[in-house]
């Protein structure tokens, strides 16, 4: 077995020269399971081997949830107007246009009306790929209009959160979206229309501290990071390491802040059952 002997010690190839498998064919979970994209797609983007939930966007969630992937998109063209003319190392306008280009989206949320096993529903789904799923005026306004639509038509609403929090580049306008969405949810509550909040990996900051935590049902995908402050900030503040599993869905369930955790493969069915139950 001499040919297995390594003559040169350590791996000399720099990371930049590392050869990656072509993107979009195979995916690998953190535990090392490898799965083909086609199989992944048929399994709601969950690894069949270790149940790892891959991060997906509104397109995939709509596919998974809406009957026959049929839905009417609301306020499709709403986009940010950079009210503060914000500039850091890069201008916000540039960030917006490059995000639009790379994602094909107009902002960090899409809202649609369709059916789940025949039941009408409105789904708002955040896209983490668009500036970290951050909430600015567009996210607030789209949720707000979706709630108006829900009240008008008496359709239940599902909001899927996936966001680092409020968008810095719209400063206090972003902060006010927390109040805006919460105010609308109070109107929804008054009408006794069910609101399900699904938190996915990650849901933190201004999103968790507003509409995401205000569902009649607060539910989450397994092993998702959910919290107010990000783990890095907490670690820096307290100056020590964080316990294992801290701020994960299971931790929140244990502490009493989630109604249940749902595997993405059962998501559609579970939501249907719940809404059906409330309708009876």
């Amino acid at each position, binding site marked *: 077995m001499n040919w297995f002997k390594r003559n040169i010690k350590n791996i000399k190839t720099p990371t930049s020269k590392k050869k990656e498998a072509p993107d979009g064919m195979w995916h690998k979970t953190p535990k090392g399971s490898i799965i083909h994209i086609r199989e992944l797609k048929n399994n709601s983007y969950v690894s069949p081997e270790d149940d790892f939930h891959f991060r997906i966007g509104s397109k995939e969630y709509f596919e998974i949830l809406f009957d026959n992937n049929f839905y009417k998109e609301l*306020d499709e*063209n*709403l*986009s*940010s*107007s950079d*009210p*503060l003319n914000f*500039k*850091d*190392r890069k201008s916000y306008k540039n960030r917006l246009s490059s995000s639009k280009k790379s994602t094909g989206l107009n902002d960090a949320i899409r809202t649609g009306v369709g059916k789940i096993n025949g039941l009408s529903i409105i789904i708002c789904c955040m896209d983490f790929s668009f500036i970290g799923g951050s909430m*600015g*005026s*567009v996210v*607030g*306004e789209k949720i*707000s209009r979706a709630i108006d639509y829900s009240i008008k038509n008496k359709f239940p609403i599902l909001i899927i959160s996936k966001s680092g929090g*409020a*968008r*810095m580049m*719209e*400063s*206090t*306008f972003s*902060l*006010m*979206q*927390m*109040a*805006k969405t*919460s*105010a*609308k*949810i*109070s*109107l929804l509550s008054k009408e006794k229309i069910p609101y399900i909040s699904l938190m996915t990996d990650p849901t*933190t*900051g*201004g999103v*968790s*501290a*507003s*509409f*995401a*935590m*205000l569902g009649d049902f607060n539910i989450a995908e397994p092993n998702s990071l*959910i*919290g*107010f*402050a990000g783990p890095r*900030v*907490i670690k820096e*503040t*307290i100056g020590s390491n*964080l316990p294992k599993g*801290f701020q994960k869905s299971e*931790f929140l369930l244990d*502490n*009493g*802040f989630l109604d249940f955790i749902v595997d993405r493969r059962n998501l559609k069915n579970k939501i249907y059952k719940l809404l059906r139950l409330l309708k009876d």
Partner: protein
Amino acid sequence: MSLDFEKPILKLEEKLTQIKELASKSGKNLDEEALSIEKKINDLKKDIFSKLTRWQKVQLSRHPNRPYFLDYIYKMTDEFIEIHGDRFSKDDKAMVGGFAKVDGKAVMFIGHQKGRNTKERQFRNFGMANPEGYRKALRLMKMAEKFNKPIVCLIDTPGAYPGIEAEERGQAEAIARNIKEMTTLKVPVICIIIGEGASGGALGIGVGDKIFMMEFTWYSVISPESCSSILWRSWDYKEKAADALKLTSKDLLKQKIIDGIIKEPLGGAHNDPNKAAKMLKKKIVEELVALEKISPEKRINERINKFSSMGVTND
């Protein structure tokens, strides 16, 4: 304790004290000299304070001598009865509240409390509330609603506390619930930024019929330092971040996020806390009188509409 840009003023003020001492010791009449220095001080203050940068205003909002929640309460109100605890788990010392009389009228006051020295600062957790603080605040608001008393929230926080226990007890849920419940309170609610208005920690007691900021305060989604560290990947761009965030009272009035600015005495609230309290009290009394003329239903509708219309988008 003083800020860099205050130093020339302090130098002149020292000189004035010396002259006054000299006059009283020697019996010489130095009134003229004293008067001319007083005028100089006033002119210099006006000059410096008319040219403050956003970052300097942020510094003023954190001035170590700046009046805090309880300072204002003792200066503005009578018969303050502090009410403790959230009736779930704890009493948060960073969030204080209770009934007090303003001009003979009972009002529920709630606010963040900072400490003056190291020991006090620790006791008050630097004005960073935990979930129990927000839950205490909500309990007090509901109590005020039950007894039909208006609510005044005075905001002064560098943020809600980012700690392990805070997360365990549901910081996000506590803030979210407050924001939602505050939109439908049946009594008048006035929120005033008296120092720092940092993000969700501020908004957790910041939803009301009227939102005001004292002149040298800031209100934003993130502090300039944290913004600098995230967007510039360094702590050194806080001035630039403050400018980019447009977070001063003047900026927010322009953005129509707040309803007005409460002027501070020349040189900032810490220069004359009594006068600052008087100016704050005047505004609170005026606004409460006006709000009480509106029916609760209309107030709630207008409050919800006010926040629902915030934000700028392109259709």
